[in-house]
C-alpha cells in the first residue's frame, strides 16, 4: 500500500513538474515584455519593477500590427478551410472505394509528408511568378493548402477506415448520391479528425515565416512572423520591445487555444491514431 501511494505521488510530481517546464519559458516571455531592456539584462528572471505597457505602445506605433494580424488570419483560415474540404473529399475516395489505383494514390499523397518543400523554393517562386501570385496572399493560401494536404489525407483516411459502413449503405438505399453520403453522413462523423487536421494546419500556417519572406514584399501584405522577423533585424538590441513583439505574435494563437482547448484535445486524441 505504501509503495502504491509512493508511486502515485511520484506520478503527480512528474506530471506537474512537466507542466511547470512547459509553461515557464512562455511565462518568461510575457513577464520580460513588461520590463525595460536594462532590467532584462540585469535581472532576466525576476518580476518587473513596474508593469509598464510602453513596449506595447511603442510596438503598436512602429509596426502595423493590425495589418499583420489580419493577413495572418486571412491566410491561416482560408488555407485551413480549403485543406479541410479538399483533403476530406480525397480521404472519402481513398477510404470508401477500392479502385485499382487507390493504393498507389494513397502512397502518392504520403510522399508529400516526407520532403520539406523548402527544397523546391526556386521552382516554386517561378511558378508563383507565372501565376502572377507574387505579392499576393493567394500564393501563401494555395501553398499552405497544397502542403497541408498529405498529412490531412493521411489522418482523415485512417479515421474514415475505422468508421462502420452500415450507415452509409442505409443512406444509399434511401437514394443518396455520393456527395450526399459524404456531406450528410460522413462529415459529421469525422468531426473529431477534422479538428485535428484543422489544428495542425492552422499552427503551421500561422507560424511559417519562410514563404512569406520570399513571396511577400509589400508591407501591407506581411504576416505576423515575417513582420516580427523584420522587427528582430531592426531592433536587435531592444530586447524589451522584442519580447513585447513575441508575446503579441503568440497571443492570438494562445487565446484561441485556451478558449477551444477541449475541442482541440478531443480532435487530436480522436483523430491522430486510428
Amino acid at each position, binding site marked *: 500500500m505504501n509503495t502504491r501511494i509512493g508511486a502515485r505521488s511520484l506520478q503527480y510530481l512528474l506530471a506537474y513538474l512537466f507542466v511547470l517546464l512547459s509553461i515557464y519559458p512562455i511565462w518568461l516571455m510575457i513577464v520580460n515584455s513588461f520590463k525595460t531592456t536594462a532590467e532584462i539584462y540585469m535581472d532576466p528572471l525576476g518580476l518587473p519593477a513596474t508593469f509598464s505597457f510602453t513596449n506595447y505602445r511603442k510596438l503598436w506605433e512602429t509596426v502595423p500590427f493590425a495589418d499583420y494580424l489580419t493577413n495572418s488570419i486571412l491566410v491561416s483560415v482560408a488555407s485551413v*478551410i*480549403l485543406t479541410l474540404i479538399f483533403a476530406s473529399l480525397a480521404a472519402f475516395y481513398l477510404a470508401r472505394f477500392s479502385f485499382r489505383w487507390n493504393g498507389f494514390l494513397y502512397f502518392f499523397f504520403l510522399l508529400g509528408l516526407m520532403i520539406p518543400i523548402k527544397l523546391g523554393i526556386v521552382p516554386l517562386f*517561378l511558378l508563383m511568378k507565372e501565376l502572377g501570385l507574387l505579392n499576393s496572399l*493567394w500564393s501563401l493560401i494555395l501553398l499552405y493548402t497544397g502542403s497541408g494536404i498529405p498529412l490531412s489525407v493521411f489522418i482523415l483516411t485512417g479515421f474514415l477506415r475505422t468508421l462502420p459502413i452500415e450507415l452509409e449503405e442505409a443512406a444509399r438505399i434511401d437514394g443518396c448520391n455520393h456527395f450526399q453520403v459524404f456531406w450528410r453522413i460522413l462529415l459529421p462523423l469525422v468531426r473529431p479528425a477534422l479538428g485535428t487536421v484543422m489544428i495542425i494546419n492552422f499552427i503551421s500556417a500561422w507560424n511559417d515565416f519562410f514563404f512569406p519572406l520570399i513571396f511577400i*514584399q*509589400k508591407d501591407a501584405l506581411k504576416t505576423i512572423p515575417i513582420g516580427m522577423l523584420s522587427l528582430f533585424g531592426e531592433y536587435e538590441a531592444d530586447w524589451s520591445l522584442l519580447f513585447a513583439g513575441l508575446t503579441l505574435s503568440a497571443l492570438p494563437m494562445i487565446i484561441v487555444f485556451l478558449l477551444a482547448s477541449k475541442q482541440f484535445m478531443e480532435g487530436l486524441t480522436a483523430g491522430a491514431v486510428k
Partner: protein
Amino acid sequence: MKKRGLHAFTTVALAASLFVSACSGGSGSQNTAPSGETPQQQSPSGEQVVLEMHSWRVEDVAGYEKIIQAFEKENPGIKINFKPFKATEYNTILNTALQSDSGPDILQLRPYATGIALADAGYLEPLDGVKGLEQFPKDFLAASTGKDGKVYGVPLSINSTQIYYNKDLFEQNGLQEPKSWDELIQVSKTLKEKGITPFAFGSKEGWLLSLSHGVIAPGAYNGNGFVEKLLKGETNLTSPEFLLSVQRMKELTTYFPENFTGLELTDLRALFATGKAAMFINGSFELEGIRQLNPDLKIDFFPMPTDDGKQVITTWVDGSYGVNAKSKHKAEALKFMEFMTTKTFGEIFANELKRISAVPGVQSSDPLVNKMAELAQSSATPYLMVVHLSQGNPTTKVTLETSLQALYLDQLTPEQVTQEVEKSAETWFAPLKK
C-alpha cells in the same frame, strides 16, 4: 446530431467563401504585378517611374528615406521604394528572385566574391559610363568588379574595424591607448587585476572571430607588406607572421569574459555598453548600436599598433549598389547610381547613418567617424579574409572562423589553424594553388 453536423459544415463553407472573396478583394488588384514592379507603374498618370531598391540594412530605414528624398527632389519623375530585409535572409530572397528573372531594380551587393558572382552570372548591368565612378580609388571598385573587368556596383561605404574602448574605465585606471602589442597586453592585465573584463569577446558566432582576427593580425604581420607578398605567392598562410597572428588570438584568451565560447554579439554589445568590459573589437557599423544601448557611454577607439612601430586600421568596401540586368527601368536606375557617386549623397550618408562614405573627400559631423575615415585614408590595411580570401567551398574565411572556434575550444593548436586555412586557400587561391 446529423443536422447539427451539417449546420456546422455549412457555416464553415459559408465562412470559407466569405474569406476567399475577402482575399481576392484585398489583393487581387495586385495579382498581375510581378515582383520588382509596383502597381503605380501601370497607373494612368504614366510618367512616374517607380524603382524597387533592396538592401540588408533594416536598421538604416530612416537614413535612406532622407537620401531618397534628396534624389527624388532632383529627379521628379522617379520614385524609389526602399525595402530592407534581415541581413541573414537577404541573399536567400535575392538569389531566388534573380534566378527567376525578377527582383528589384536596384540591389545592394555583398562586397567581393559573393556580389561579383552575381555579376559573373550575368544578373547585373555593367556600370560603364556612369558619371562619377572614375573618382573612386581602384581598390574600392575592386569590391564590385567582375571577371570581365567591368564595374557592377557603386561603392557605398568603407567599413573599418578597430578596438573600441571605454574612456572612463581607461581614465579611472590610469591607462593610455596602447602603442604596441606588449602595451595592449599590459593594459589588459591591469584591467583584469582591477576586476574589469578587458575584452567584450565571444566565440559563438564565427563571423566575429574572423573580424577580430582581421584587427589583431595586421599588427602581427605588419600590414600591407605581408599582404602584397601573399598576393604574389612569395609567402603563405603557414608563415611565421601569420602563425603569430593566430597565436595572439589565443594569447588574449585569459582577458575574455567568463564562458566566452557561448557569447553572441548582443551579449558582447551589452557587456561593453554597460561598462562591464573595457574594450570591444568591432566595426564602424557597430558604433550606432553601442550608442543606442547607452547614449552616455564615453567611447573612443584605437587602431592596431604593428610590431614595426606603426598603426593600421583594417578596412574594406562594405556593399555596393548595382542595377538588375533584367530591370525595366535601367536608365532611371543608372541615374540613381550616378547620384550615389555625388558628394550630396556621401554627406547625407555619412551624417545620417554615421558611417564612412566611400565618396572621396566627404566629411562626417561625427568626430569618431571622421577619425576612422582619416585613418582609412592614411593607414589602411585590407581585411584579408573578406577582400582576398572569401572564395572556396566552404570559403577560406569560413574555414578560419571554424578553426578559430576550434582553437578556443582547445580542439586545434595555432599551427593546425594555419594549416587548415592554408589547405583551404590552396584549393582555389591562384597565388597559393598547387
